[in-house]
């Protein structure tokens, strides 16, 4: 069926205008998310300048192996998400569900690794405000580092959970065969959101894990 007589919301003239509007709307929303994380990035940059030693020593306390694996896992989930969007554009119902499932799986693996790291911090008494114990001369600025660590990764994990929720909602719709070559906007929009969450982690990884590693 041709593009124009696809059913579209009454306020739009045709389907292309509706798709373009939702595509722009999503990018604008991602702009607000950039500024939302941006507030914390600004605070982080300021304190990293003010307390370089404390940030370096605190960053060395993080487990770089788990961090790198997590980054790889998230990039892989971005890859499978891209393939899911691609198969949605081709209208192939089965591959959409497979790739979406893979993305959800990888997302849960990421969250699993993240929460083991949180557990490690709990064991090592590195949670600020809750019997935080650290080398006395660096304790206070290190508490700021870990506050930013938990704030940044916590909000990121929250966005992951919302993303996984959206993906499951997509799978249900895909299972019901809602998506076709002409109509797959929801998959594209969730894809944009997921890639954005991945980009945030791409920046979080070096900022949190790789500070002053060369100092040993």
């Amino acid at each position, binding site marked *: 069926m041709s593009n124009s007589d696809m059913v579209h*919301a*009454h*306020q*739009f*003239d045709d389907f292309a*205008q509706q798709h*373009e*509007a*939702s595509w*722009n*709307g999503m990018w*604008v*929303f991602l*702009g*607000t*998310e950039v*500024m*939302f*994380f*941006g*507030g*914390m990035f*600004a*605070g982080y940059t*300021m*304190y990293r300048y*003010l*307390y370089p030693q404390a940030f370096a020593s605190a960053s060395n306390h993080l487990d770089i192996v788990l961090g790198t694996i997590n980054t790889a896992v998230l990039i892989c989930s971005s890859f499978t998400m891209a393939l899911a969007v691609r198969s949605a554009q081709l209208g192939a119902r089965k591959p959409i569900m497979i790739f979406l499932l893979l993305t959800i799986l990888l997302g849960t693996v990421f969250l699993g690794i993240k929460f083991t790291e949180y557990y490690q911090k709990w064991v090592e008494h590195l949670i*600020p*405000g*809750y019997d935080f114990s650290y080398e006395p001369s660096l304790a*206070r*600025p290190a*508490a*700021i580092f870990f*506050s*930013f660590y*938990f*704030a940044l990764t916590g909000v990121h994990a929250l966005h992951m959970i919302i993303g996984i929720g959206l993906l499951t909602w997509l799978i249900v719709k895909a299972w019901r065969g809602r998506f076709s070559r002409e109509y797959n906007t929801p998959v594209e929009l969730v894809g944009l959101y997921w890639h954005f969450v991945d980009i945030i982690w791409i920046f979080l990884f070096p900022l949190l894990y790789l500070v002053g590693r060369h100092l040993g």
Partner: protein
Amino acid sequence: MNTQTMERRQHYLNVSYGIKSWLFTTDHKRIAWLYLISITFFFFIGGLFATLIRLELLTPQGDLVQAETYNKLFTMHGVTMIFFFLIPSIPAVLGNFLVPMMIGARDLAFPRLNLASWYIFILGGLFTLTAAAAGGVDTGWTFYTPYSSIYSNTNVALTVMGIFTTGFSSILTGLNFVVTIHRMRAPGLTWFRLPLFIWAMYATSIIFILGTPVIAIALTLVAVERLFHLGIFDPAFGGDPVLFQHLFWFYSHPAVYIMILPAMGVESELITCFSRKRPFGYGFIAFSSVAIAVIGFLVWGHHMFVAGQSVHAGMVFSLLSMLVAIPSAIKVFNWTATLYKGSIALDAPMLYALGFIGLFTIGGLTGLFLATLAVDVHVHDTYFVIAHFHYIMVGGAVMGYLGGIHFWWPKMTGRTYPEPWARVAALIIFVGFNLTFFPQFVLGFLGMPRRYHVYPPEFQVLNVMSSAGASILAVGYILPLLYLIWSLRYGAIAGANPWRARGLEWETPSPPPTDNFEVTPIVTEGAYAYEKEPEEVYTFGEPARV
């Protein structure tokens, strides 16, 4: 007033009745009404706090309320008025109603998102009202740490959650407007044929989108620091309270442009309609709206000249603050030039518009005092600052809002308000306003600090004048509430274009049908062709496909 019944034509108000048709509507016009009712409610709550403050300040010693109650009063006055009245007022009410109509669209790009915005706004309002009922918050609407994050024992977290939630309502509204203006303009409606109100809405949406998330995260960090005692703003941990001020004012200064830009948009519509002339320097007014929105993001440091910010940064922010004053000056000069050789009718909206120019000019010029470094050192955190921002917000934004409400009231309700009463109310508001806030400029020079519950006796005379003015202002605000509600039932029936104005929204009957236009209009010329008849400007194309 004859009350002939409206001829039985279906329009967006009588298309369906009942609570469900209102609470689950996705019609941008009905959502505008939902916002109008809720922000009027919040306006009178904020006004109540203001009356108590002015009563308390009648006497130098604090004898009406204790110190902490007074602190809660001015905090709740600030929070309610800014986040729950001024920021949503013109964008959510007039913007929601007019943006689709002015660009010839049937509705906003995302109607359901628009309804969701209203529910999020109401949710935020409920949080803040419960906080107020449960004892209020006493940190000032600025929530400066470390007082807000450590020392205050009032329910800061709940209020902060309320503002956090309401913030998303303005983000989503901004998103809706930007996409609608980009994607859904009528055929032939290029950017430079857009009404100036749309330019102002577009500029305001830029600020909604890029500014609001930063205060969302800043307030969340304050709430998190209160609950888990992290160290981000806590000086005991080496944290820096000035960082919170940076994050807070990065949004809150552009927020004052959120409040004034829509009023400027309304202003351009009113001045052109009531002097029957094209706007003088259309392009300059349009670009200065966007320039204010963009440069507005570079100047936040002028709130922190004496807050421990470095001298160098103070100078950078002072220079940029001077630049942001230029577009506002351009607008004022262009409005005044539009009056030249026009045919000016002094209806109520025009009274508000002219009042706006005068008061906004005083507000803007006193802003230059605050942008000049050395003068700000003297008048920062004094009543001079309070007078300045009330001149901009109450003298500018609220006058613009009332002017807009009166101007588009026939379009929204199909009825006209009683003109003589409206003019009386406008004059009372103008007089009451000046008597309330002009003495505060003098108080500021004399050095009376803001947020003072007890003040030295020599300031009493000016404070009594200010309180007297406040009572007149209160009367002035109650009048429109009364006669506008009265006009809903008994107002004369208004035709499609009672003011014989130009603009797409006047080319459809009032109140407009649910889909705004029977047939999608095609625009061949700019919105202000007052020297031509409307027929020569708008032709109507093929019937709108549904």
